[in-house]
């Protein structure tokens, strides 16, 4: 089947199998490989992207479901001139990443979290990121980064 999806502001279109997942559309059709696959069970959140501005795990969304809609990945977050989004900047400054594998998903989940709740408490941040697993950072600096980004954007 044919899908047309606006990804990071650009319209894309391709013939895909019915079963093609959004994450594979992004990675294998568009070669946007920042969005990662970390599990088979929609548990890890590495594949989190924004679909019409809401965070989704792109390993549970079919490309077909995104047809005609807008997707934002971490590649589309920084400004045209490369200026990092406040969330990206906060992750950098707070050392909120180590190997970087969970990072694109964490960043996208954070963007969505802060949209819903611009001034979250630490507890709310922790609960909000429950669906995004990180093996490297112990979450400590990720939580700090989210709170710093909230501070920055509020």
């Amino acid at each position, binding site marked *: 089947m044919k899908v047309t999806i606006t990804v990071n502001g650009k319209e894309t279109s391709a013939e895909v199998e019915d079963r093609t997942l959004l994450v594979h559309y992004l990675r294998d059709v568009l070669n946007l490989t920042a969005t*990662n696959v970390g599990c088979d069970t929609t548990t890890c959140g590495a594949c989190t992207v924004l679909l019409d501005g809401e965070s989704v795990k792109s390993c549970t969304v079919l490309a077909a479901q995104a047809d005609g809609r807008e997707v934002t990945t971490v590649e589309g977050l920084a400004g045209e001139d490369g200026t990092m989004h406040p969330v990206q900047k906060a992750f950098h400054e707070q050392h909120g990443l180590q190997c970087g594998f969970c990072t694109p998903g964490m960043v996208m989940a954070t963007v969505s979290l802060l949209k819903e709740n611009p001034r979250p408490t630490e507890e709310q941040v922790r*609960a909000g990121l429950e669906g995004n697993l990180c093996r490297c950072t112990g979450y400590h600096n990720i939580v700090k980064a989210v709170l710093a980004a909230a501070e920055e954007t509020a």
Partner: protein
Amino acid sequence: MSVLGTRVVRIEDPRLLTTGATYVDDLRIPQLAGAAFVTYVRSPLAHARITGIDVSAAAEAPGVVAVFTANDLDDVPPPPADNPLAEPLLAKDVVRYVGEPVAMVITETRAQGEDAVELVAVDYEPLDAVVDVEEAAKDEVLLFPEAGTNIVAPNGPEEFDDAPFAECEVVIERTFRNQRVAPVPMEVRSAAAAWDGERVTVWSSNQNAQTTRMIIAGGLGVEPDKVRVITPDVGGGFGAKIGVDRDTVLVAWAARRLGRAVRWTETRSESLIAMQHGRAQVHKVKLGGNRDGKILAYRMDFMQDAGAYPRVGPLLANFTTLMVPAVYEIPTVQIRSKVVLTNTTPVGAYRGAGRPEATATIERLVDIFADEIGMDPAEVRRRNLIPADKFPYTTATGLVYDSGEYVKALDRVLEAAGYEELRAEQERRRAAGDTKLLGIGLSSYVEVTALDFPNGETGRVVIHRDGSATVYTGSHTQGQGHATSWAMIVQDQLGIPMDKVTVIHGDTDAIPVGTGTYASRSLQVGGIAVHECAVKIKEQARELAARELEADPADLVLDTDSGAWHVQGVPGTKLDWARLAELAGEDGLTADVHFKPSRPTFPFGAHLAVVEVDTETGLVRLVRHISLDDAGPLINPILAEGQRHGGIAQGVAQALYEEMAYDAEGNPVTASLADYSMISAAELPSFELLTMETPTDVNPLGVKGIGEAGTIGATPAVQNAVVDALSHLGVRHIEMPATPERVWKAINEARGSEKRAAQ
């Protein structure tokens, strides 16, 4: 001012944050264009004889390029005849664990591979499986009948001497389990291979390109120079990606057989059942001491569950053995170990690799001993910790602890935690009959890092004519931030700013000799090699500058703020690095160093965990975690803290949540992240870190390793805290992970026995 010791944010981050890293599965390079995809057929049984494999249906399936079984592996060296326990590339006659690779299907796309593996028909004749390590040690079911036993590496005395225990006022005997856990790097195993004539390039998600090259060359039966290994970005390793699995060797083999590029990335479920696990030890222990709190004798008789093939099982047992005496001065220490094969996934290194297990057990025992003699556990520790004036200290296992301040570390943690107030609060809740009890748990630890010390590490620094520098390192990063640290070391020595330093690792053509990253060795071996290169370059530069400025070399000074040389007292005439590189001519300004430390180093610390235990549900919540981890001077405190945070989370996870479990038939029951309770942000508090920097004399920067500290210190502190919360009810021990069910049962058993005693 030196950049060392300052909080420098990572230079590698902007790329990772904006366009993502490039892990193996992300590679979109010409050599891999049109690569076919490997999917493994894995054994669904823990122990069985393969009586037939029919690949005909799979071979006809859409997109299938080839299906290979052990019979196709006719062009690789046979397993060594003198090693009956050798691991075959694909299982031939017998499978020994669920997840063992039996066949490989190669397809045009990943999805076609998932369909086609279902069509490979393997006939299995089930054999009895042995899952429990103590059962396996009885040798009733043998994994390798030709070996005659499942016990691989027995070590230690036949008989123990009981006399030292006979003289103790208090003797405690227990059996503790250090459960099997899964390392779970967020990036699963992944590899790709492409041949160019006689030479193969393998991209692998791995902790060491150079070892990977040797293993692949050996597996394929080619000379090492025919293999180039590149490790692009790696999404975590935690010890599980050191060494390379047969799954990766086979990718290179299939690319050769097909004359076509091939790639492979496992699924998470495959990773959980087929990537090596960690820990998995059973400790039978005996501890004796006097009522004044002095520990006099300690015995550990333990088994390492190696899983179905020995791999590094014997090494893990050795590491545990070395660390049995831990931080304490104990007159008698007795150790015996056995490495035992079971029908489970092979066990290998996982953050700490054998050392956390030793610490977990003695720290648990010290608490039980404290309880027994009615003394505060902090006081018992203080009375037995090796005092600061005894360093260097030679242990009962022959290690020489370089430097340490164990009592101070413990006292600082107690103070920061407000130990007395915590105890008062604990009392208050108990007295009020609160259903949320407070538990306070301590651990003191020492660990050994850079245990492979005689290997050393390669470093090379090249200064270019534009004044920039390139660093080549044989160590390897899986997220530790080496590029930043190595650039800091260069800036500190040479005054070349970090943004003009490029760090290259993980390519065997660029760095043929290297040992990679494990056992917290990188900074103190690989980093020091880079440091020594910079020192050498400075000496070369001094000579060049002296010649150019017609001065005595001894009079030349390098201003590391500006990165320029001048004659002492004549700051006007300067030579910068660009000019010096030019003066060096053809050969350039280059230094090569293979740094070999003389000994390993011994970081140490103390942790204190505060938990809340809900007596109605058994649920445990970690509310505070305070740690002091001393690994000598910190090159970049931000990076060191990051390592500690990650380690603590993994340590807490082992104490409370994570376990890779099997049923009696050897079926893994935690084979997805939906079942394996990997710790998330919601289960953790922010950590409270204290710093102390006791240098080592083993290397010129005085640095030790920090990568595993958090894991080693956190697990026993949390486990002790859980038991401590319930100790007034008579609970003396709870196995890990302290799940609500286990905790709830312990509470009920204690209450039951209280009632029985009252009757």
